[in-house]
């Protein structure tokens, strides 16, 4: 079967929607980080498929930048989750209510 750009874009959009739905519905901080990674992968699929469409390398270059930055973001996110866990003894977002009111 021949994979066209449209297929890849639908794949990207599907992954993006799964990640977005998870981000909005899950309440566990780690699942949230995983959903963010999923959405970033969707972006990467879009970049790489557009790079193939236009026959130039800029999209592939952006892919590497996105991956690197996503790693940095996860590192900071995990550090903050650890700190949150140390203070609260859980990582549920429902418990993050100190600032309400």
């Amino acid at each position, binding site marked *: 079967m021949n994979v066209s750009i449209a297929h890849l874009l639908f794949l990207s959009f599907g992954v993006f929607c799964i990640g977005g739905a998870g981000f909005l519905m899950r309440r566990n901080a780690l699942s949230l980080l995983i959903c963010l990674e999923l959405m970033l992968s969707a972006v990467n699929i879009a970049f790489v498929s557009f790079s193939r469409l*236009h026959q130039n390398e800029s999209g592939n270059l952006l892919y590497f930048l996105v991956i690197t930055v996503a790693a940095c973001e996860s590192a900071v996110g995990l550090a903050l989750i650890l700190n949150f866990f140390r203070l609260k003894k859980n990582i549920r977002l429902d418990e993050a209510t100190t600032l309400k009111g």
Partner: protein
Amino acid sequence: MFERLLVDSQMALPILGWAILAILVLMIKICTRGVWLPLFATVIGLIGLIFYSATHLNSGAQDLFHGALKMDSSFYLFNLIGLGIHLAVVLMLIPGLERTSKIFKVSYEQFPELLICLLFSGFGLSVLIAASDLSTLFLGLETLSIGVYCLCGFYRTEIRSTESAFKYLMIGAFSTVLFLYGLAFVYGATGATNYSQIQSIIEQSHLAHQPLLMIAVAFLIAAFAFKLAFVPFHLYVPDVYEGAPTPITAYLATVIKVGVIAAAFKVFWGFFGSLADYWEPFWMTLCVLSILLGNILALQQKTLKKLLAYSSISHSGFLGLAMVLTHPGVGTTYPLMAYLVVYSAVTLGLFSSISFLENREQVFLVEDLKGLGQKRFWTALFIGIFILALAGLPPFAGFMIKFWILEALIEQHHIGVAIAAICGSVIGAAYYLRILMLMFMSEEQGSASEWVVLKDRLYVLRLIVFLAAILSLVGGMRPQLYADWILSALALK
């Protein structure tokens, strides 16, 4: 090839200077103990960079690194504002070093790391401002944001600070993803990543109606609205501002707005210029909503920092309008620049006064300010000046920056928007004046007058407050001075 790189690096010193300074402070931190040497290096380095930027204000536009960065006169001005804010925030953080309570003791052991995060964020800011390629735009925004996530969680033994950092990270990362998806569609529609190439492709091949570009515009507007905290994307802002350390709240309220509005200015009037019919109505609606709802929601707030968060939401609405007014050809740039300068100065001054008064163990309620005018007259007086400047009342600079925006709005035939903005400001005056009444007309004493204030032994907080008050007073009395300075800095005069 290599020589070109060397020449470009030398020209990009106002940008690379930030990173060099950050690495230098990192080295000092590794090699020595104590917090004063890194602090000293940071302050000296920032002053040096300010002088360098100030002397190069009119050095003309340059394309660097094969068009990845573009340094023009607006870059130097934005960068100068950013440098000034960084210096003020670093100075604001100093008195905290002498606090003795446990939260501060444990956190301030890592003060050099805080400085490094600040400087790397500043590097991100200058890359974001200078960006003229999708890759540098994205990298700049992320370098700025990741540093700020760390800064928000600086009081790491305190749950409020950690929670604010955590919320900011989640929302920030989500908006980054939206932003990136927008960039992916821009790239997909045009096949180029450089701003000028994208612009010429959109204009030449009549791509303006292409659905991919429409999706890209929608995603980018949402992402910028998240970063600038436009209503209805503002929900995280009050919590983040409330929990973050007060100097960092000032940083959030100023630096993020400078960087993101500069980037929005280059994106929307850069390569989306020919699509203005599509994005302008949406953008304007979001701005008007933030001015109106930001002010209305601020009326109900009980804690001081949340109130200021909502006030900053309404101000970012004004900034957004000023960005639209920079329309190349018919528009003017100086309302935007003047708004950034004055708003940043006033915000920094106000938050310095708050961090002087504040007692971190308790939430700072608006009611706590009761009767402050009798107990601490000077602090209350300066808070009053900044509050009036934020409200936009005539003898202060806050009035003329709003006036310039409204004037330009009417000149460009956006009369409905101008009326809505005026209504929003009038509603806003209610809660600003309430603070004044509490401070000067209340008979009772609120708890703020009993808290132990910061020991400001180096007079840094007083210096910032004093300079900010002068900036807002001079701007109100002689607005033409500001307009002339900005126009000459932008080489328009």
